[in-house]
């Protein structure tokens, strides 16, 4: 399975990539929603971690577009936005899980496993 990490923070992209490198055969990275969509079309990752507050295109808009392109993709939102309404919105728009920043590597690994194990 391939993972795409979408976050405008280089440090967060590195951190998530390092933490999950053993779980995936390949890791792709994007710094905003626009780049994420281009990579999704070209490389078709099976799993995505998605930040919400990003320049150019925010995470919720990106989720909606990617779901149309890759209906079976699993998306874990990884965001600092800690209010329930945001989590509910992201999940209603197609995300499969929500992890709030700051996170530990153990929390990230647990959240990704839950998203991967979801059945349709």
């Amino acid at each position, binding site marked *: 399975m391939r993972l795409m990490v979408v976050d405008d923070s*280089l*440090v967060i992209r590195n*951190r998530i990539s390092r933490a999950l490198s053993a779980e995936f055969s390949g890791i792709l990275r994007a710094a905003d929603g626009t780049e994420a969509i281009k990579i999704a079309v070209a490389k078709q990752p099976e799993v995505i971690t998605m930040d919400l*507050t*990003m320049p150019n295109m925010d995470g919720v808009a990106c989720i909606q577009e990617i779901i149309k392109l890759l209906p079976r993709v699993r998306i874990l939102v990884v*965001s*600092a*936005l800690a*209010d329930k309404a945001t989590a509910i919105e992201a999940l209603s728009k197609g995300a499969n899980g929500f992890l709030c920043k*700051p996170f530990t590597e153990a929390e990230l690994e647990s959240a990704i496993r839950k998203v991967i194990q979801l059945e349709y």
Partner: protein
Amino acid sequence: MKLEREIDIFIEGVRRYFKPLSKADQEVTIGTPFLIKHDQPMGLDYTGLIAVSGDARGVVLFSASKVMLKYILLRQSETKFDEIYLHDIAGEVANTIAGNARQHLGARFHISPPRVLNGKIERRHLSSDSRSYVIPLRWRKNGAELIVSLSYATS
């Protein structure tokens, strides 16, 4: 929003950010918050700035020394400390603390993606019609400041 309640929310955000980074003897210590006086110098080496809109308007800034930012990067397993990384982590800390505040301030506390300032913060970076204050903090013997400058729409 009472000032004391707002300060408590942001102190909680600071503690929450540093908790996963800290070993037992390295907890963040929070100093006494203080209101910013006119012409008071503010800011350290790098400052992450988050613009706030919606029910509140203004900015939230996280300003830290280069050394503290390097320690934060180290605790996130980074081995590069050039300016692009220092900028990035200053912005990400500000983004996380401001975003976490939505747990109490609600979804209409809209935050921007971060931008980063080098050096001292100027008065023009703060909201002109709001109370502005500093929450000083220390972590691993290095200092940082969370600066909050917010006003609320009155109904």
